[in-house]
């Protein structure tokens, strides 16, 4: 790194060169071979399970970039919650249903690296400022106007380990400390010099990129496993959406994390941590496609009541429901689609016609109120609607794709939307308009897949308010989902609850999210195993996360699958068939 010295003259170029070198190294190392294995959940302390992981499972080593949330969570855990830049890193491309998987395909430009550098400057300036230095920097320099090699090395060693997710090599520590000292002497300020060093740590590819590496697995001769620090980081990003903490790194340093018992202990500790809520929130925010809230806009003429605060709170309502149901209550994942429990704020309460004191409060919809499950929460209903009206098609498509992992083809290019968009349509309800629209055979096939579930949600308008009629005509919310009939949205929730693809879809998403990249057709036995483990646990998400985290599929390395070009969206993906 030549980026030290004159801070104002530093450019992103050396960084990007270093990134390129590092990336090439990491990608070249992504190889391995399959062999029989024994999973970590067979540790002596693990509960005896009738479900056994099949032989030969494993996942590909990845090179991925930290997401903004992972970066911010890590910074917050290392330096405290008030050290919080607003970096606005470029979002990843949604891949196989998840943004997180796009981070393994992210292109990095000098411009985007500048964003990391700006964030690094903000963080380093805050850490060394007089308000923070006394408790974030444990040692004190002998003279604040001069370099103090011992103190600088102590700080860089401590924070560098947390930011690189591994101990710094002696060479790295020596070079960065030397730059800190040089800058301190040049600027006549120990803390300014330390800030330069911290900035370099933060913008380093070692911090920004997750480069998984492997080693021969002594318990599975002929196979590779993630090395201890790669495993620690993969676990931590999966369960906490942040870099590993000191304890997890210690388990990696000691090698404990590579033993079945030690890994089970580490995972148990991580699952018991408050940080699990952050991890679960991040996963479901990603899986539910809530990044769409970032660009959500409603027509203020059609829906003047809908405000930006409502959008933000709608997202938060569902995430709170998820965390409460899945983490706090350790409930059945499927019950998310039938539960009457939720959380309300003054903003979302307006849409529910409820009073609410400032802040968030738990709320239980009465049993006879047609709000059951997260499909009937404002978030799902609002995001999957048009700006000025509902869309049974969008809602049905979202339900199929997001919750059941089914793929709905895009509409034909010459589709005629006039029947559904005509404001003077003789059909008062969406059902009437869509029925007419389906007279076009080119449209009917897909709409029959999507619309029935979407029409079940027509009792809620485009911002999620309950209604019984549209333009004076009573809404018929009945339909069928894959052969199961329902009369209304509450029954749809129960049908969805019992749909076999519902938990299977979550398993697929959770596994690919945890292993850091899209799955492949070869994953079917692995996914079958997790399906069985999930069912055995009573569909408890933390237990699914434990099963994934302790599996060989998570830690043993397989060669990357050959990419298959997807025709429809130009994505390079492979399809997991189940």
């Amino acid at each position, binding site marked *: 790194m030549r980026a030290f010295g004159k801070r104002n003259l530093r450019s992103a170029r050396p960084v990007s060169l270093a990134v390129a070198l590092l990336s090439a190294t990491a990608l070249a190392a992504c190889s391995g071979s399959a062999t029989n294995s024994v999973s970590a959940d067979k540790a002596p302390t693990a509960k005896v399970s009738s479900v056994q992981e099949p032989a030969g499972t494993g996942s590909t080593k990845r090179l991925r970039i930290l997401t903004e949330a992972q970066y911010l969570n890590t910074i917050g855990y290392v330096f405290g919650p008030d050290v919080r830049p607003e970096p606005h890193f470029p979002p990843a491309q949604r891949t196989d249903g998840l943004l997180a998987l796009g981070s393994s395909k992210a292109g990095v430009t000098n411009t985007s690296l500048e964003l990391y550098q700006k964030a690094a400057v903000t963080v380093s300036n805050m850490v060394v400022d007089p308000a923070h230095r006394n408790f974030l920097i444990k040692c004190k320099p002998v003279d604040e106007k001069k370099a103090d090699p011992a103190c600088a090395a102590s700080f860089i060693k401590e924070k560098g380990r947390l930011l690189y997710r591994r101990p710094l090599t002696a060479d790295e520590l020596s070079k960065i400390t030397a730059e800190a000292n040089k800058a301190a002497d040049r600027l006549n300020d120990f803390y300014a010099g330390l800030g330069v060093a911290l900035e370099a740590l933060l913008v380093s590819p070692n911090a920004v990129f997750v480069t998984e590496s492997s080693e021969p697995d002594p318990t599975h001769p002929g196979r590779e496993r993630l090395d201890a620090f790669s495993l620690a980081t993969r676990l931590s990003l999966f369960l906490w959406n942040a870099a590993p903490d000191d304890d997890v790194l210690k388990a990696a340093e000691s090698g404990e994390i590579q033993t079945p018992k030690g890994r089970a202990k580490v995972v148990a500790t991580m699952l018991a941590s408050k940080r699990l809520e952050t991890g679960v929130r991040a996963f479901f925010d990603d899986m539910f496609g809530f990044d769409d809230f970032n660009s959500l806009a409603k027509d203020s003429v059609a829906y003047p009541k*809908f*405000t930006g605060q409502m959008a933000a709170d709608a997202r938060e309502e569902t995430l709170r429901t998820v965390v409460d149901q899945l983490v706090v209550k350790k409930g059945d994942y499927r019950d998310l689609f039938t539960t009457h429990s939720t959380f309300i704020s*003054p903003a979302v309460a*307006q849409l529910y*016609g*409820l009073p609410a004191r*400032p802040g968030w409060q738990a*709320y239980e919809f009465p049993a006879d109120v047609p709000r059951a499950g997260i499909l009937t929460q404002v978030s799902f209903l609002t995001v999957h609607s048009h700006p000025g009206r509902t869309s049974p098609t969008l809602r049905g498509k979202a339900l199929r794709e997001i919750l059941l992992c089914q793929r709905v083809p895009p509409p034909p290019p010459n589709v005629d939307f006039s029947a559904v968009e005509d404001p003077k349509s003789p059909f008062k309800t969406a059902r009437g308009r869509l029925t007419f629209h389906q007279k076009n055979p080119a449209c009917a096939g897909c709409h029959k897949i999507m619309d029935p579930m979407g029409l079940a949600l027509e009792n809620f308008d485009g911002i999620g308010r*309950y209604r*019984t009629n549209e333009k004076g005509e009573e809404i018929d919310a009945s339909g069928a989902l894959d052969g199961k009939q329902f009369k209304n949205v509450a029954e749809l929730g129960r049908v969805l609850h019992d749909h076999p693809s519902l938990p299977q879809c979550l398993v697929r998403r959770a596994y690919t999210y945890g292993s850091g990249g899209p799955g492949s057709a070869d994953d079917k036995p692995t996914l079958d195993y997790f399906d069985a483990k999930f069912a055995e646990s009573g569909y408890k998400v933390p237990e699914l996360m434990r099963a994934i985290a302790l599996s060989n599929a998570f830690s043993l390395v397989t060669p990357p699958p050959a990419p298959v070009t997807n025709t429809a969206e130009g994505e390079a993906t492979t399809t997991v068939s189940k």
Partner: protein
Amino acid sequence: MKTYKSALLIAAAGIAFGAASAHAEEGALKNRTIGYVMTNKNVATWQSADGKTECPNGLSDGPREQFKALYPDDGTKRTFVDTQLEREGQIWNPTTEPESPKLVFHEATGNTAIGLNLDGKVGPKDFTSPDGEKGIDNQLYRVVGCVNSYRGPDGSYRHFVEEYMQKFNYNRTLIELTDVDSLANDPDVTVTLYRGKDPLTLDATGAFTSGGTQRVDMRWGKEFIYKLKGKIVDGVLTTTPADVTYPESQARGVPMEYVHDWRVRLKLSEEGASGLMGGYIDIDRFYNSLGQNWSTHHRSYGMEAMASEYRSLRRNADAYPDKDGHNTAISGAWEVRFSQAFIMHPDATVASSDAPNKTLAKDTPAKTTDIAR
């Protein structure tokens, strides 16, 4: 009619247990209760198309114009004490003594005014409303009808009152209707006034909207709680007169208004309510609030000369004479708008135990005295 305590219990239970039917999200009238929060309040000021009917001589001068009239820039050397402080002192020590003929203050003329018939009579000084209702008691209109601040659409107070209504919670005025069978017609409803303590709810366009929540201020707002009787006829709520004090602060001070025989006439809907509130306004409190609420800066932009206005208030006072026979109150009205809001009580126990045993509803109109102008 249920007791106050039971009404509070019902309201609290409604909040605790939420909606009770499949259609509970429809409609704001729940558990025979509906609440409203005040969003707009302007002194009822009727204006002709060109303003010449009520202000044939133009609008009144404000502080800047009066200062210039009294102390022209003619080379005379004047002290701060004899000019600015002198005028400031006159504002805070008002008198009914005649003021300098150099000062221009116009009272509104004509027979048309917006307001309520407070005494049930048609007196010689009374107005007729724009829609033909006779006996309108609104002598305050005589006083402020030609003061720029109060006139629409751009009167200074009209702008600031609305802005401050949104910015500050001090004036948060709530009306809760309980024992309501129908918002269209109900001969007997209970109307309870509270002070709320939450911000007003705005929609995406920045307009006040319904469906927000207001917590009752049971800490510092107890003095503003009143239980009144009312009736709803063809969707219009009227309340029996009661002496009411309500908060009246515009960004500074902690003033209030004291109004004899206060009542409302509001067109109700599930989204909101609008109409008039009025009564006989205690002049000393009105004047004090005016001084606390508005700086000379505001009054200058609104051309409101307080000391001149005080004389007019006294001249036009029409009710509640003191022992010397001088009226202490003046009839007046405000045009008001409310948005529907859920009124949240601390909890049933606290609400019932803290509820004031204060029922000031009156069955007979106030005794009024018209005085010669």
